[in-house]
């Protein structure tokens, strides 16, 4: 498959495939680029940022994020899970809203505060 490297804005392209349990890369890439492209091929990961619904408040939403990237294939399942979560004030930045979300090892944390 073709992967575009996004480590720097140059956007070098590479063809990546697996051959006898080894990852093959075709394309001019720098050192950082090679690392990114390999990981992207093996298991693409993304930081998920979204909001959580608030109950009992005039403020309706608190923004949240995963504290580390999670597998791309789990993004929508996480969104589904999060849509059912309700939080109440007070919330501080960095508070863990959901620990180890869907077994990814990443916590869902608040990125803005919610005052009482």
């Amino acid at each position, binding site marked *: 498959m073709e992967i*575009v490297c*996004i480590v720097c*804005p*140059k*956007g*070098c*392209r590479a063809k990546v495939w697996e051959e006898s349990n080894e990852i093959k890369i075709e394309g001019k890439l720098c050192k950082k680029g090679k690392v990114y492209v390999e990981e992207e091929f093996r298991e693409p990961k*993304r*930081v*998920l*940022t*979204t*909001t959580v*619904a608030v109950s009992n408040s005039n403020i*309706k*939403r608190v*923004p949240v*994020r995963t504290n580390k990237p999670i597998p*791309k294939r789990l*993004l*929508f399942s996480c*969104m589904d899970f999060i849509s059912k979560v309700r939080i109440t004030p007070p919330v501080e*930045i960095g508070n863990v809203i959901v620990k180890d979300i869907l077994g990814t090892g990443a916590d869902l944390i608040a*990125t*803005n*505060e919610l005052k009482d």
Partner: protein
Amino acid sequence: MKTSKIDLAIIGAGPAGLAAAVRAKELGIKDLVIFERDERPGGILNQCIHNGFGLVRFKEDLTGPEYAHRFIKEAKSLNVDIELNTMVLEMTKDKEITLVNEKDRIKKYKCKSIILSMGCRERTRGAIAIPGTRPAGIFTAGKAQRLINIEGYAPGKKVVILGSGDIGMIMARRLTLEGIEVKAVVEILPYTSGLLRNEIQCLRDFNIPLLLGHTVSEIHGDKRVEGVTVVKVDDNGNYLLDTKQYFECDTLLLSVGLIPENELSMMANIPIDSYTRGPYVNDYLETDVEGIFACGNVLHVNDLVDTVSKEGEIAAEGAANRIKGKFPRVDKTILLKKGENIAQFVPQKLTMKKSTTLLIRVKTPTGEMKLSIDGIYKKRFPYARPSEIIELKIPEKEFQNKNILSSELKIDCQESKNGDSMHSLS
């Protein structure tokens, strides 16, 4: 009606204003207030819940609110006074401002110095005159972002996005994650106008079709959007009518440009650069009115908030010097003019009293190129895209020992003949 005196008034408690306030306090300015129209500080960052902020400044990958929080916390610890739900109604050339809020009603301040950090607004459907009907369901991307991230509203079920700027692409991802279908992102230029990272992580990741060289030629629907017609355009932006495609949708998002919000600046007769649509400033970010400084998106549309914070700090340094009476005497100011392939830049004037960084946008993408200031200073860059500001750092020593006779210098961007050409994606 109260009229008070104040050393420093900062208009806008977004990232630019907050950084300016913190720096001003650090430099010993005690008598300062930030006036903010919204109900909390942080400006637009409050609704930018995605990550990618602070990579340069903090070497961390933060979300908008987290980035803002760094400065809000710092401002709190330095006892920075922020007046919320407060609107500045007028500003004069004599640095007098008139404001209104519920608590103090109408009040005026005579300021020693003012820092403008009002940010920008979005270009609207009306301003680009998209033909068709006027139903509900047309939003600028920023407004949709506020609705979805702050109020929790889903703007619609099926969306078409016009404009591939960062806000448009970020919203494409946001909507998709919330289960809203994004049918296409339509861009009039032959390349996207946002960061490459966003093209991959917002569009490619979700297989959202990107139509380059296209635009929306008509909006349909009487009460609510029912669909849009999309056409290919020629090099001059004219519709190629035989390429019409109809997209059924109930929502149209517009990400077609940001305009610095300089109403107050114009009231004070501060000269505005028609290219940046912000004030002319020198390397201290001082406008043509002594004591009034500008920073952040009100000065020019930035692409990285890290740069916005830096501008806030530079403005604060200049303002602090004015207040303390320590502003360097400027004998000669050089006016910089646009040359080849230059769209806009700040600062437009150089006092040559300090090192400075020119923030430049090119008109069209290039591969390896050379930025030069009329033979005085030049630097090579591997590539340039209009959507990414190029930083041209000029150390102070470059101005010394150079007998610059003229008062105007040109900036040019010349593409190298045999350089590595820019990788394009489509």
